């Protein structure tokens, strides 16, 4: 039962999160006309599973030391990747590789990495069940409430969805490491970081350090 549930979750995550090969093939009328729907979905599932497997092997070698064996980071300042939308992981890796986003620890990892490898890694991390890091501190109710009160006015849900779990190129926020969230928002606010576009720079403009700390606490405490 538990295994079946996990498998279903992984398949669902892969099907939703792997826009690359599978969905594109399904979109092409000329291609799909030659195959039945069942064959396509079986093929898609097969492709998604093998992408995850390849990604898992690569992640164990290249990512786990910092981002955690299960994709939940135990390292200060390093984000958890478990359950992140695949396109988010892909986009950030491309930005690292192309030199558009500068994080020294990631530069060497991303350098020369093939698109297919990046997509495999993304499929792997998207398939992992998300959750908070083991060292998450206890909730500070006042800080939590202060952060919660900023979610609406700051329009976080517009891109990150009302669940704050992200979509496509937009990351999942809940359960993320508090120190990473805090530093990231400060970097956006102070113009030290850009994303795929400058939307986050606008979203955090004018926030005080205390407000950012509250937001980071709230988001990290949400499950």
């Amino acid at each position, binding site marked *: 039962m538990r295994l079946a549930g996990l498998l279903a979750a992984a398949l669902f995550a892969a099907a939703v999160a792997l*826009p*690359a*090969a599978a*969905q*594109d*093939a399904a*979109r*092409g*009328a*000329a*291609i799909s006309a030659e195959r039945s729907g069942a064959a396509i979905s079986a093929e898609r599932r097969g492709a998604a599973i093998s992408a995850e497997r390849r990604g898992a092997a690569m992640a164990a070698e290249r990512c786990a030391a910092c981002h955690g064996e299960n994709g939940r980071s135990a390292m200060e300042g390093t984000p958890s990747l478990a359950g992140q939308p695949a*396109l988010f992981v*892909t*986009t950030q890796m*491309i930005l690292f590789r*192309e*030199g*558009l986003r500068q994080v020294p620890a990631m530069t060497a990892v991303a350098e020369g990495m093939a*698109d*297919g490898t*990046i*997509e495999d890694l993304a499929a792997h991390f998207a398939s992992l069940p998300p959750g908070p890091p083991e060292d998450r501190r206890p909730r500070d109710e006042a800080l939590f409430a202060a952060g919660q009160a900023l979610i609406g*006015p*700051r*329009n976080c849900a*517009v*891109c990150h969805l009302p669940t704050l779990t992200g979509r*496509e*190129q937009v990351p999942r926020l809940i359960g993320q490491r508090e120190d990473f969230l805090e530093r990231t928002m400060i970097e956006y606010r102070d113009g030290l970081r850009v994303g*795929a*576009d*400058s*939307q986050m*720079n*606008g*979203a*955090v*403009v*004018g926030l005080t350090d205390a407000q950012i700390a509250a937001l980071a606490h709230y988001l990290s405490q949400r499950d």
Partner: protein
Amino acid sequence: MTMKRLVFGLVAALTAAPAYAQAPAPVPGWAVGRPEGSTLAPHAARMTVTPLDQVPVGSIRLPPGFQAEVFAHGMPGVRAIAEGPNGTLFAGTRAIGRVYAISRNPDGTTRTRTLLQGLPQPSGLVMVGNSLFVFAVNRVLRYDNIEANLDNPPAPVDLTAAFALPTEQEHGGNHHWKFATLGPDGRIYTNVGVNCNVCETDRDKFALLVSFNPDGSDRRIEARGVRNSVGMAHHPVTRELWATNHGRDWAGDDAPQDTLLRVRRSGEDFGFPFCLGDWRDPQYNAGRNCSEFAQPAALLGGHTAVLGMRFYTGTMFPEQYRNMAFIARRGSWNRSRLAGFDVVVAHLDAQGNVARVEEFLTGFRNDTAQTFADRPVEVHVLRDGSMLVSGEQMGAIYRITYRQ
């Protein structure tokens, strides 16, 4: 139809009003005015290579006698196309920050290189002589003698200060990417999009078509009140400037429409944010009479995202296409059902008026599943009269040929 459209616009305006009433809301530009509960958002870009067997050339539909093939592929985010004197094609991108070079092998196949990378949205490309100009938001970089140095591009001449285009920050992250083209007068024409979805703006600074000498001097406003144009071309006979233009979002599925503009006199005003054709903006009309503004040459559908346009100057296609405007419609996100994702032809009459607009390249949009296979962004006429169409989503350039 008109009534329905007006009611829809009004409802959208009313539901959107509270967003404007708030203090500066740090909502992303694209979402300003989004009604409560709407889940519409721009489609995510794909930044990885699409394998050749998944490039959806097989789904392309064309009029009888036309064929489509994959000309080049493996170029995520490919958009604008510029051609060098020796036939090298250069292609710009947005988020992935690259400029590609595509050269043709003797056997007709192509070779693609990533020529430049790490640039901020290098979507505007123009060749002036042997020099490639790259417009990357406000940065303007000139790469001299580029075709002789495809494997080792020279350090660029930085013309950013001379052109003095508004920065991404001044744009507030809205419509800051560029399209660029060379006019028959030897000047470079480009767009300065508006710094919002819709707003009162500095109409001497934003929502413009502008031209410059290639050294960045002598800025001239070619058209005003143009919300955002990401495609322009000069008519091969009249030399008039034509441009595509995106209408604002969140005012309904079908209004305002994206438009084709014909600039009859330098400096004409097309009315943004007050009007678009005879359509009055429900929030920003400010009591202006729409007849005081230049009227669009054609309406091209709500939110279809009209991008690259070129006049067909070749001889391969049938005579009826000579000097007609081919227009890529990248495809909608800000409407309830997908529209565009195709290339249309605006047929002009002897006076240069648009007589009709016809579909030309279709098949990317699946109306049943509400999915799309690719997003056409640029059209480019090759010297042999065939036509290239760039597909941004799948990172491919398609070549359209005709034989009887």
